[in-house]
């Protein structure tokens, strides 16, 4: 097995060994909320999971001084960073798919397949955007010092989404047919998040090598 696969496997095993109860709890909570039919409030779901896995994993590693382990294993530093990005990418896809499955069940309370599909793309984009900001902050500032910056990112995210919702309500519904533009919009957002994710990976690799010199 390649080193990259082994590193991803290691990260996933750590996540499962340490956080399975949180993940199962959040999954069950998401399913419950969806079945009740309050799908509009589900935005917390991928955001919480991404925070839990991305920051939580880094925090666990910091507590256990795992940088020692990463440097003693027969792998390159670039592989360690790449594996972390691939792990969180897999997590983002997995969580979005779980969310999609939960919402498919939500069709029972009146949601359309199209809107559920759009949500899948949107939440995948949101998750990727969040980790694209979080991981470089963690690599640059370290786990403890990045905490406040990450909280600020979340605060801005929540305030921003609240502001957008408010403007949308005040302005009324757009005049164009939303179904014609929604697909394009969501794929566009996902593509932008993908580009951000790649740029973030490049930046984090540079930061990881720079910080190694300290």
């Amino acid at each position, binding site marked *: *097995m390649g*080193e990259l696969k*082994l590193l991803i*496997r*290691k990260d996933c*095993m*750590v996540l499962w*060994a*340490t956080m399975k109860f949180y993940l199962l709890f959040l999954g069950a909570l998401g399913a419950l909320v969806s079945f009740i039919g309050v799908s509009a409030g589900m935005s917390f779901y991928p955001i919480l999971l991404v925070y839990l896995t991305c920051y939580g994993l880094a925090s*666990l*590693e910091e*507590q*256990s*001084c*795992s*940088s*020692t*382990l*990463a*440097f*003693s*294993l*027969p*792998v*390159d530093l670039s592989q360690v960073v790449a594996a972390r990005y691939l792990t969180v990418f897999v997590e983002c896809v997995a969580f979005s798919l779980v969310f999609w499955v939960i919402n498919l069940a939500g069709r029972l309370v009146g949601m359309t397949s199209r809107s559920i599909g759009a949500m899948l793309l949107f939440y995948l984009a949101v998750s990727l955007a969040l980790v694209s900001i979080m991981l470089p902050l963690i690599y640059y500032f370290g786990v403890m010092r990045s905490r406040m910056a990450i909280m600020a990112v979340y605060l801005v995210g929540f305030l921003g989404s609240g502001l957008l919702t408010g403007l949308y309500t005040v302005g009324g519904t757009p005049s164009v047919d939303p179904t014609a533009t929604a697909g394009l919009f969501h794929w566009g957002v996902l593509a932008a998040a993908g580009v951000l994710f790649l740029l973030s990976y490049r930046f984090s690799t540079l930061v990881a090598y720079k910080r*190694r*010199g*300290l």
Partner: protein
Amino acid sequence: MNTISIRGLVKKYPTFELNIPSLDIPQGYITGFVGRNGAGKTTTIRLIMDMIAPDRGEIRIFGKTMAQNGREIKQDIGLVGDVSGYIGQCKVSQIHDMIAPFYHNWDEDLYQRYIKRFEIPQNNKVMKLSKGQNKLFYLIMALSHRPKLLILDEPTANLDPVARAEILDILKERMADEEMTILYSTHITSDLEHAGDYLILIDQGQLVFTQEKDSLLENSCIVKGDNSLITPDTRGIFTGLVQTGVGFRGLCRDAALARETFGQEVVYDPATIEDIMVYTTRRDEPWEN
């Protein structure tokens, strides 16, 4: 043949500078790496493991540099530091499953033999292991891929004598079974009295000496006597000298010269590694009568 060769190594921090002009760790021997806390031992090991980048200089391991052959070199290195780096919330068996596949030469029989022998509970979380068990597990993991170079950074710190003895027993066994080079960094110098072959002393980031242990101990002695015998001329033969109201005690690295200088007027005691480290690195104020 040297396992590690260091040339012109410099690493600067705002309050500390490590400077090792030249250092070789011979293949197939246990080399003790001693010095006070903060002397630069761990920094040197971190540089060897490529955890930090040097400002200047070159480190070659098995004749290769980490920059070009890092992955290949690390297949043959076992590292046991003060902390394992294993996630404490994971079970022993899970850590094994995560780490073992990384190594081409992983010896599962050896791993299982040691795990059973030292009764490491495989279903316990790492954080639930005792300090001794934790360090033993860490050492077993490091040895199970049959490294050619084992780097130990304070492996017996904070351990009880039984756990320390177990760790030293494993090391002796492995040294007897196969040709392995061990770099053993410690400030518990008694560990090296029986096990070490060579000794490196580092102080305040500077290499003080590197020498074969037995010849170092044979040639060194502790001299005790009356303060009246200490003159500007005799003071020069001591590597370290402590004077109090009742007399002096000093380390002389040339026992023959000490005997020639003081004859029967003083007492000579054999020097231990601890004596050599203490007298060489302590920074006392000059004594005035």
